[in-house]
């Protein structure tokens, strides 16, 4: 409910009322909020699974749940978080809301397909939810064969179907973004005047469009194998179980870049605004996004180093994996250099950006460990890998998402969130996260395998530390839930440009009108030119 202060002016939230005006909307901003609600639900569902897992791992012999249930918990945690939270998160919420605005467009190229994308995510999610409630699935989110096709007695087909449908949501969003960026930029908005967030979203969309169909067809084959017992992946019938792994990872490795590239785009925006300087090395950051998308398709075999893949293939994939690390490193250096002689604000979005750079650096550096064949033989399928990808997905992607939510909250809702509580939450999340996942690096190198319900006694202390951290992290995530909702009614009314940012989205009211801009903007200057948004200035640096 919007208070009277804002209700006088018409904007996208109050222009029409009623459930049909939301469920049949073509407005990208409303669709973004529909997505926001949906993925937040899935986030807390995935978080609930994680909570149960971490509680169970407090003791070496378990006791809270049976092994069967535990196996379902970690499977469903992975499926929910990856397919129904992380992959849609930034693109479908912040991307949907702001990509058209940042390039000066009234909407995406295909608004009705945008709405269809949301419905597909919901249907896919309901299918997966049905599988979870009907008894769960216990194959791991990676569905390795022949366990998933021949041996598992769980709801594999329903889950696979849910992911299949959600995959089309992802493909259509990517398609929409690509066409929008190519064809709907405002006059004067050349490629190199686009904000870096757009470059990241574009690169992400390339991956979504090219990679997801391969996952779709892989799931179709798993479905056929399970229903018709045809033997494509079953060695007893002449099939090859490792072929599944190749097909699966051909999508699932680029998928991790779907999850991190948008986050990097958000960070570029935040670092720039809250240093009040253009991002250092704009062209390098822009091109590195595209480089990550392209090279990311060439490294899937690094998930198969010990799978009986040939030694030579392993070497090629290891070599290429180092290539994909370099563009990410370039970004980290450029972001850090942006801070040099800047005017640094400690607003909450910036705190999340600092956290992102630190944690993504650690996560990315540990990626270098697993890319090295000799080390990976020892640490693959252990907690080391779990720690590595959680540093990137949670310490990286989710922190960037939180930063973006705080940054753009005033624009989306017309309200400011409470800064004190927000900074505290950011700190709690940072500390809780590190306590949860740093011990897991040690656990992994010690040899604690993944997906273990029970474990040898000597690993307990590290697991207890990890669970303690998880409880802190949970508190850290609950706090924004509460104060964001609080702010909708009681938060300070937000001006059009509370941060002094330069993007086109800040040139319109908060919240924006339905058509985004009163007239189509014409762009005449580079991105991140802060002299254009400030009155009297004191020059520094």
């Amino acid at each position: 409910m919007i208070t009277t202060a804002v209700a006088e002016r018409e904007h996208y939230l109050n222009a029409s009322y009623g459930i049909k005006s939301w469920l049949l909307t073509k407005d990208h901003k409303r669709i973004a909020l529909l997505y926001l609600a949906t993925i937040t639900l899935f986030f807390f569902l995935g978080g609930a699974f994680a909570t149960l897992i971490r509680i169970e791992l407090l003791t070496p012999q378990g006791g809270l749940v049976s092994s069967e249930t535990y196996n379902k918990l970690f499977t469903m945690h992975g499926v929910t978080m990856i397919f129904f939270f992380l992959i849609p998160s930034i693109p479908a919420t912040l991307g949907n809301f702001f990509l058209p605005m940042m390039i000066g467009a009234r909407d995406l190229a295909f608004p009705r397909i945008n709405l269809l994308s949301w419905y597909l995510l919901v249907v896919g999610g309901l299918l997966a939810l049905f599988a979870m409630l009907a008894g769960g699935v216990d194959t791991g989110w990676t569905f390795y064969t022949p366990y998933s096709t021949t041996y598992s007695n769980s709801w594999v087909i329903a889950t696979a179907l849910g992911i299949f449908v959600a995959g089309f949501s992802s493909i259509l969003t990517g398609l929409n973004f690509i066409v929008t960026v190519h064809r709907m930029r405002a006059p004067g908005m050349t490629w190199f005047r686009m904000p870096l967030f757009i470059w990241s979203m574009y690169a992400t969309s390339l991956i979504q469009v090219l990679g997801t169909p391969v996952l779709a067809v892989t799931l179709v084959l798993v479905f056929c194998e399970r229903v018709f017992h045809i033997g494509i992946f079953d060695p007893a019938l002449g099939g090859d179980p490792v072929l599944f792994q190749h097909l699966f990872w051909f999508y699932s490795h680029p998928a991790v870049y779907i999850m991190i590239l948008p986050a990097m785009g958000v960070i570029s925006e935040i670092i720039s605004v809250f240093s009040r300087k253009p991002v250092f090395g704009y062209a390098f950051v822009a091109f590195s996004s595209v480089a990550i998308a392209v090279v990311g398709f060439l490294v899937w075999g690094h998930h198969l180093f010990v799978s009986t893949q040939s030694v030579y293939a392993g070497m090629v994939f290891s070599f290429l994996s180092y290539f994909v690390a370099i563009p990410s490193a370039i970004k980290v250096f450029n972001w850090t250099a942006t801070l040099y002689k800047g005017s640094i604000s400690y607003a909450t979005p910036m705190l999340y950006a600092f956290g992102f750079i630190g944690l993504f650096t650690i996560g990315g550096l540990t990626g270098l460990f697993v890319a090295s064949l000799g080390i990976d033989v020892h640490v693959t399928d252990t907690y080391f890998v779990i720690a590595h990808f959680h540093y990137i997905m949670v310490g990286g992607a989710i922190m960037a998402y939180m930063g973006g939510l705080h940054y753009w909250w005033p624009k989306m809702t017309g309200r400011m969130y409470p800064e004190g509580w927000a900074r505290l939450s950011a700190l709690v999340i940072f500390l809780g996260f590190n306590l949860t996942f740093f011990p897991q690096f040690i656990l992994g190198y010690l040899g604690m395998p993944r997906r273990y319900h029970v474990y040898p006694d000597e690993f307990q202390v590290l697991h207890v530390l990890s669970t303690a951290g998880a409880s802190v992290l949970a508190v850290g995530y609950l706090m924004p839930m509460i104060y964001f909702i609080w702010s909708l009614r009681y938060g300070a009314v937000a001006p059009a440009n509370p941060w002094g940012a330069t993007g086109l989205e800040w040139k319109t009211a908060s919240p924006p009108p339905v058509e985004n801009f009163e007239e189509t903007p014409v762009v005449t200057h580079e991105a991140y030119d802060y002299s254009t948004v400030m009155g009297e200035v004191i020059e520094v640096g």
Partner: protein
Amino acid sequence: MKLASQAHVHAETLARREQFDTAEQQRDASTLGMWVFLITEIMFFGGMFLAYSVYRTFYPQVFAVASSSMNAVIGATNTGVLLCSSFTMVMAVRAAQLGQRKAIITFLILTLLLGLAFLGLKGYEWTLKFEEHHVPGPSFHLDGVDMQGPAQIFFSLYFAMTGLHALHMVVGVGILTWLLIATYKGKFTAEYMTPVDIAGLYWHFVDIIWIFLFPLLYLIDRHLK
């Protein structure tokens, strides 16, 4: 001025598509959108083509026997049918560019009939396969090979790939039907025929997939026993 007259003629079109500034922008966006979609379809079918290629390499003799058991006459006929349908589709697009409503309808009907002929022949071929016990399942048996497992893999991939292709044909038939109705109602002019254009792209794509499927499934190693 060109822009103004377009805006005048297509006020109805643009009103439905508020996000675009000009008809040209709308047309460009729709066309690019269809091309991007077709690329995703290539990746989708590509996964199956890859699986097929891998197993062909593992079991060349079994796949050769299986290929030889396919009915190349039906396959070749279907190839001819689809190629003709692409031709009639091109003619339909050409007619739309020239604003010739009657010609559009004629050529769309021909394309539709050819598409239905393809589907009919494919259905007939599948019933033959059923009678020959080449459908994967408990009663599967391929003569001339020891290892029934890989033979079953061939036919699983055959049915999956041609089934997926047929599904796309059915969608194509649905799109053609919608186009026919829209043309009949006078929705398209020489200036606005984008849906016909992009439907043509889709139809050609489905044709091209078949052009790859036919030699891979029916022709390679055909006489090798």
